[in-house]
């Protein structure tokens, strides 16, 4: 906690900072934008605390961008800070999406919009695949990880179990496989590696 600033920011400052991040973070990778602002520019968190927040966010349902906003906002200014950060993060995207919905609903724009969106959807598929390819390359280790990835894919696309059942079944099996071992030598070290592997 060496570089942690002494002065806590106001709720308004938190809202405006997250509003800015929420408005400029085009192209995915919101976490990188968050780090740039919260750690480098504002110095509200140091790298260790930011990594901790990110790793909590990864385990919970909900998206990284909004989970980090909530956890970060709470640490800065309690529930008011969490709400301000969340609202700031979401507002620009909400306005963007309402406008997109209005355009999409207009029948005159339909054929052109549909043609454009066919291209956009193809590129989005490539982008999403690349994003998950990078995450997988960094964070998957060993036979069990590969097995659980495959089990989840087969559960969704081959056995058609649906998301809730696949998540519960494969998730429970995976958590049980990685259950606490009584005589584990260096769990803290391994966990650090895992956290770093997410970045």
């Amino acid at each position: 906690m060496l570089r942690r600033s002494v002065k806590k920011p106001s709720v308004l400052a938190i809202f405006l900072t997250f509003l800015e991040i929420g408005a400029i973070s085009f192209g995915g990778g919101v976490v990188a934008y968050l780090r740039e602002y919260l750690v480098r520019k504002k110095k509200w968190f140091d790298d260790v605390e930011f990594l901790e927040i990110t790793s909590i966010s990864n385990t919970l349902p909900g998206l990284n961008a909004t989970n980090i906003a909530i956890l970060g906002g709470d640490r800065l200014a309690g529930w008011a800070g969490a709400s301000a950060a969340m609202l700031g993060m979401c507002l620009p995207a909400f306005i963007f999406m309402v406008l997109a919905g209005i355009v999409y609903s207009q029948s005159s724009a339909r054929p052109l919009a549909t043609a454009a969106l066919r291209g956009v959807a193809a590129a989005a598929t490539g982008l999403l695949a690349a994003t998950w390819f990078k995450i997988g390359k960094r964070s998957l280790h060993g036979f069990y990880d590969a097995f659980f990835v495959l089990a989840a894919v087969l559960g969704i696309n081959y056995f058609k179990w649906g998301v809730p059942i696949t998540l519960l079944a494969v998730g429970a099996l995976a958590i049980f496989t990685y259950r606490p071992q009584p005589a584990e030598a260096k769990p803290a070290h391994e966990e650090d590696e895992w956290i770093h592997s997410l970045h």
Partner: protein
Amino acid sequence: MDTLAALARVFAYLSFLTIGGGMAAYPEMKVQVVQVHRWLTNPQLVHIYSTGQMSPGPNMMMVAQIGQIVSGFPGAVVCALAFFVPTGILTFGIGRLWKKLEHWPWRVSIQKGLAPVAIGLAIGGLITFGRTSLTGWLTLVIGFATFAAVARTKINPVFFILGAGVIGVFALR
């Protein structure tokens, strides 16, 4: 009113399936939005989901666009609140408990176990998604070119997405 209540139920439910990211919930979103409630066709859902990749902030705010199309502005508000508030409260609560959970041995097990499952669910979602988005040689070329470009360069992907939209206007009508 019934539609708004259904939107709230469906999107609150879907939000709890977004382990690791929105793509994990996509196959179930398709079931609910396309098959059960018939709010959108399958290609419409794929197109709207894709606009999330052009937006700043959380990509999954595209749920507000679904609400806007199905039920106008109140629909957009309901979808956004249903999708982001319940999981937000959960995150807030667990964040507060974190100091106590820090030394709970199962916490590491949950983190390690869910990491590969989240990746598997995302790949499963992408396969479901790609079956609709990648049809025909041009979309396949766009998809693979974007994958290669994003995986190998540091150029902001939003440019590839916008470029693909322009190609679509001229070549995918």
